């Protein structure tokens, strides 16, 4: 028994692939998830300020002062835009929310009325907007809320007590102002900031879109890897060699594989979206041309990934080991498993290097942001996917000539 166990251990430690799957893959995934969800990477008590896009329609000293004070907080870093620009950023999915300081802000503050401040947001980014809103209300009340309420109370006091002597009035004014200077968020705070969704109120819920797009892309990556790996099966079973005997150009063998991977990918995505329509009522027919183009671009990028992976490997087993790790990592970073906005900023920056990110964002553009096919944002995402696919195909072709053909 001892000898058998020793033999198995020797075999296990001699198998580098098994070692990698047993130790390195879980370590890599734990690290990745810790960065994504656990807040690892930030020192305690230290956080980077969130960029807050503000549109100053009031354009007064008061509104400028408000922006300056928001910028000086540890939570926010203010970036000024025009209203139109700011709203566009939300509509295109570049910002989850923007703050609009409407005309009349200064007058309202002076009159002690509720200041016309509005948060315009993308309802798809509900969680992120919720956090932002909480931080914003606290700061706004601290900056302008107490002052505004104090003014309102003083005005009311003066109107009700017109005959009070000036020295007493001054003392009472000072007391009221002092009291309101430490006003904290109260029950009325929610109504202090008007919040308006810019995108959505449509049939398709962002959760559903994320579930369908994220899962579809992740599963697609797994299935195209299998198609790509069939190239290695061909090599192993001798059919690749036999194909090379025939009068077709060797690179056409790879192109044929790419084509079949593309067709399978398109079919898989189409079926998944039809299922989402039938089972969950996802409105796919209102955006058919955009959806089809997006499906083709996503399928192209994903299938290229499968072929690329196969062209690097020397056996199907190697492809399987590599693909498990790479796809899980890509899906985690790229937003297939959880929305990217939940992740730390540096991971959000990395996410743009994944097929998942561009695919998911593209489907959001179609189903949530309702961008038309002619919109540059949607077109740019499609273009990025096509470029990713082309780049991967070119590398795959080079590797195919180097690895697969020479060994055949």
């Amino acid at each position, binding site marked *: 028994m001892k000898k058998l166990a020793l033999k198995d251990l020797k075999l296990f430690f001699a198998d580098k692939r098994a070692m990698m799957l047993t130790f390195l893959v879980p370590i890599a995934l734990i690290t990745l998830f810790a960065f994504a969800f656990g807040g690892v990477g930030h020192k305690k008590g230290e956080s980077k300020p969130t960029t807050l896009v503000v549109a100053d329609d009031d354009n007064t000293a008061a509104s400028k002062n408000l922006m300056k004070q928001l910028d000086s907080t540890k939570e926010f870093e203010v970036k000024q835009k025009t209203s139109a620009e700011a709203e566009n950023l939300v509509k295109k999915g570049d910002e989850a929310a923007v703050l609009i300081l409407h005309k009349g802000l200064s007058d309202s503050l002076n009159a002690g009325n509720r200041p016309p401040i509005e948060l315009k947001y993308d309802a798809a980014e509900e969680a992120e907007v919720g956090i932002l809103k909480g931080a914003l209300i606290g700061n706004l009340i601290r900056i302008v809320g107490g002052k505004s309420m104090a003014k309102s109370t003083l005005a009311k006091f003066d109107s009700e007590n017109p005959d009070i002597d000036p020295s007493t009035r001054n003392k009472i004014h000072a007391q009221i102002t002092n009291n309101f200077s430490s006003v904290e968020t109260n029950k009325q705070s929610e109504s202090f900031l008007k919040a308006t969704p810019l995108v959505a109120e449509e049939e398709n819920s962002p959760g559903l879109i994320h579930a369908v797009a994220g899962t579809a892309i992740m599963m697609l990556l797994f299935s195209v890897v299998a198609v790509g790996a069939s190239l290695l099966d061909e090599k192993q*079973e*001798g*059919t690749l*060699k*036999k*194909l*090379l*005997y*025939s*009068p*077709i*150009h060797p690179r056409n063998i790879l192109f044929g594989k790419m084509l079949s991977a593309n067709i399978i990918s398109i079919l898989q995505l189409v079926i998944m979206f039809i299922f989402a329509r039938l089972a969950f009522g996802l409105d796919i027919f209102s955006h058919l041309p955009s959806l089809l183009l997006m499906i083709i671009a996503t399928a192209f990028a994903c299938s290229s990934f499968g072929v690329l992976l196969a062209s690097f490997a020397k056996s199907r087993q190697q492809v399987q080991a590599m693909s498990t790790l790479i796809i899980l990592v890509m899906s985690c970073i790229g937003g297939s498993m959880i929305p990217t906005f939940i992740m730390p900023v540096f991971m959000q920056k990395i996410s743009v290097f994944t097929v998942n990110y561009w695919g998911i964002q593209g489907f959001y553009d179609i189903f949530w942001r309702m961008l038309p096919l002619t919109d540059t944002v949607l077109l740019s995402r499609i273009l990025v996917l096509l470029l990713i696919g082309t780049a991967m195909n070119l590398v795959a072709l080079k590797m195919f000539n180097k690895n697969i053909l020479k060994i*055949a």
Partner: protein
Amino acid sequence: MISVSNLKKNYGNIQALKGISFDIKQGEFFGLLGPNGAGKTTTISIMSTILEPDGGEVNIADFNLKDDPIQCKKIIGVVPQEIALYNELSAYDNLMFWGGLYNIPQSELKVRIDETLQLFGLFDRKNDKVKTYSGGMKRRINIASALLHKPKILFMDEPTVGIDPQSRNLIFEVVEKLHREGMTIVYTTHYMEEAERFCDRIGIIDNGQIIAQGTFEELKSSNMMKETIVVSFVKLTDELYDKVAVSWKDLRRDENAINFYSSNVKNDLAKIIIKCSETGLDILRIDIQKINLETIFLNLTGKQLRD
């Protein structure tokens, strides 16, 4: 039809082919013989365009292999050593696929597939998946897939390895038919009887060099090979053996038998029998060991062909 000149191929520091040359005429059945690692498959791989040589030239029909590989591929058919088929597809679908690579019109291809399946005795099972076939049946389909475009030259690399006698005989019949019809065939095999039976000419390859080539008769005579007449006796004493040895120089004793080496068995057999009778030896039996490729190879290299 095929001209190979000073062909060289290295794998790292190993010289797989050290400048081999040979010519194959149209309609000729050429056998390439040699032990494992001699360079047979490397030669076939270069001739069938999937391996680039490090030196030398190959011309197939009117085309230079390096300059016009696609044209060369159109006129050759290759039966690889391994069975290279799609197991999940039927025999018919496999043939449709492999034949389709040569741009044969669909209707013509269908006719050719039916004819080929008939020829190989697999027409009735054409719609069965290849994975349900026996090894011999798969090998037949493997060969059939290389014939659909009616190649002028057929490369067959060990086409009968590990198959049942029925399939082997069927393959032999097909190969002979193709040869009769004028196809040029290049055949590598370990089985000497196959080479002796089919080949018009033979090239013997060892350590990356062609060490002899020609017809079987030419190989025999050029190496001054002798046949062996083995005469077994009831009892062979030293005294009687010495008496025989005086009059016959090229012989060897093997217990109660004597091996007489002869370059003309027809003439020498009678002489040996008479001499033995005159000496007083009682002959038990006589065997004649003819020259074969195995003995020629042994004579040329000092090692067995299947080493």
